[in-house]
């Protein structure tokens, strides 16, 4: 195919937008931790931008997008060190089952597609930092995300985005409900369990040290998510427009859903609730963005906002310290979105999609596929994360010692303090 300048313009900025989300995430989380740990949190997220980009270029991309459209389990080393990732607009998966053998004809430079995917590979492992906050050694973190990128993210991305077995099975995931959010959320749960509770949790209050940081992070995430979801159309077309609209309104509705339940249950709507609700909506709409329309995004957002508010209470019940609610927001939100897609998807909005239970001509097929795919990704990520985490624990230790935890990560891991006001 020819390169289309309009599509390329949109994908250039989308790539930049998704890259910008990781700093946004850093501050979304960074505001929630205590002030002695804020640099630790920011550093983990920024460091993901450093380490994972390089690993993606060297091997991650090839493992995820090699053997494109093979309906299989993993890519290959064809694109090792971005080999053959050029400026031309190639067609991926030609001759495979994809689109009836026609494959995915890019209208943008291949290197841009790979860079766009790189930004996903950065933020997904970074999402996990919310559950391990305040107690994970920096060194252990660095090793964990490196291993996780290769052993968990890349294969799962292949299954879905790379035309692997889940895609072939018929599961839909527009921009990463399973690949990004269920995947990271399950890993967050595994790591929270492995690490154990922060000293003092849940008795001692561990309030956010600066909610304005969390809010500015939310603003950046919301903005950047335009690139994440509408960019996943890989073109500046009607589906991208639909995805953008769906993304923004789902976030809005989820904020309302969260705040209403919060107000009913706790008596006050909180700003942290508004931020968390919006993010939960963005998570839920991620798999759906290019497959639904009308008022469906509002329904998906609203329901997810309410459910995620309730879900963040689970950790108190089950006693795992998912410090900043990766499970409640990303795992549960990702599951909600993936499953609600089985209800709301409609080929009216995207002929390449499918019809969910509520759509004309739809049935249970998609819903079942969505559930199966969600469970497979959840289980795979949870188990693999446990294994990787455990090995690192045995080899280097995952957790800072008690004194270090009391002093904070900023000082003990980075020899810095955040504020001298």
């Amino acid at each position, binding site marked *: 195919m020819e390169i289309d300048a309009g599509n390329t313009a949109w994908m250039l900025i989308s790539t930049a937008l998704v890259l910008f989300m990781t700093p946004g995430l850093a501050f979304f989380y960074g505001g929630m931790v205590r002030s002695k740990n804020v640099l630790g949190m920011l550093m983990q997220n920024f460091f993901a931008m450093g380490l994972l980009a390089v690993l993606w270029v060297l091997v991650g991309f090839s493992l995820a997008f090699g053997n494109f459209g093979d309906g299989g389990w993993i890519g290959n080393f064809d694109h090792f060190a971005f080999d053959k990732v050029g400026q031309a607009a190639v067609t991926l998966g030609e001759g495979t089952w994809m689109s009836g053998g026609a494959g995915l004809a890019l209208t943008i430079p291949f290197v841009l597609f790979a860079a766009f995917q790189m930004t996903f590979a950065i933020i997904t492992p970074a999402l996990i930092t919310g559950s391990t906050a305040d107690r994970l050694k920096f060194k252990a973190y660095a090793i964990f995300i490196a291993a996780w990128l290769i052993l968990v993210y890349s294969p799962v991305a292949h299954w879905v985005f790379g035309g692997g077995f889940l895609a072939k099975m018929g599961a839909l995931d527009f921009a990463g409900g399973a690949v990004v959010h269920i995947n990271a959320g399950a890993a967050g749960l595994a790591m929270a369990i492995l690490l154990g509770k922060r000293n003092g949790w*849940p008795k001692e*209050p561990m*309030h*956010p040290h600066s909610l304005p940081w969390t809010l500015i992070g939310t603003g950046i995430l919301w903005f950047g998510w335009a690139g994440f979801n509408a960019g996943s159309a890989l073109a500046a077309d009607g589906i991208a427009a639909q995805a953008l609209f769906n993304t923004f309104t789902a976030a809005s509705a989820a904020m309302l859903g969260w705040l209403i339940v*919060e107000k009913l*249950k*706790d*008596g*006050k709507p*909180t700003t*942290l609730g508004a931020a968390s609700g919006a993010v939960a909506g963005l998570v839920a709409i991620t798999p759906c963005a290019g497959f639904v329309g009308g008022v469906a995004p509002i329904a998906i957002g609203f329901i997810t906002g309410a459910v995620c*508010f309730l879900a*963040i*209470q689970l950790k*108190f019940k089950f006693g795992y310290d998912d410090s900043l*609610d990766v499970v409640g927001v990303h795992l549960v939100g990702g599951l909600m979105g993936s499953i609600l897609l089985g209800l709301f998807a409609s080929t009216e909005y995207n002929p390449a999609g499918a019809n969910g239970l509520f759509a004309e001509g739809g049935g249970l097929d998609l819903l079942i596929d969505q559930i199966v795919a969600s469970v497979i990704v959840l289980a795979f990520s949870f188990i693999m994360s446990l294994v990787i985490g455990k090995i690192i624990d045995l080899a280097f230790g995952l957790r800072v010692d008690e004194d270090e935890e009391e002093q904070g990560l900023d000082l003990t891991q980075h020899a810095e303090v955040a504020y001298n006001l």
Partner: protein
Amino acid sequence: MKLVTAIIKPHKLEDVKDALKEAGVHGLTVTEVKGFGRQGGHTEIYRGAEYVVDLLPKVRIEMVVDDFDAEKVANTIVASARTGKIGDGKVWITPVDRIIRIRTGEIDADAL
């Protein structure tokens, strides 16, 4: 010499400072503090859990004054800091052996 220390509500600081200036106090030192007392506290919500915060923002004023001024200064503070509502704070007086002005080395009454 006496040291008069007062804990007051933050928004009364300007009034108290003005009253003290009028009463002839030439210097004082102010600290932001938090107070626990009969006033109770307020409730914060975090992730669906309620936390009672019983340390409330207060302002601490301290000033060294002449022995015979101490009562007057204390009364000035009491009068100007009072809102009549719980949590208005305290004033206390403690003895001082000696005070020195760093700039000049002057001591006691001359140092004020």
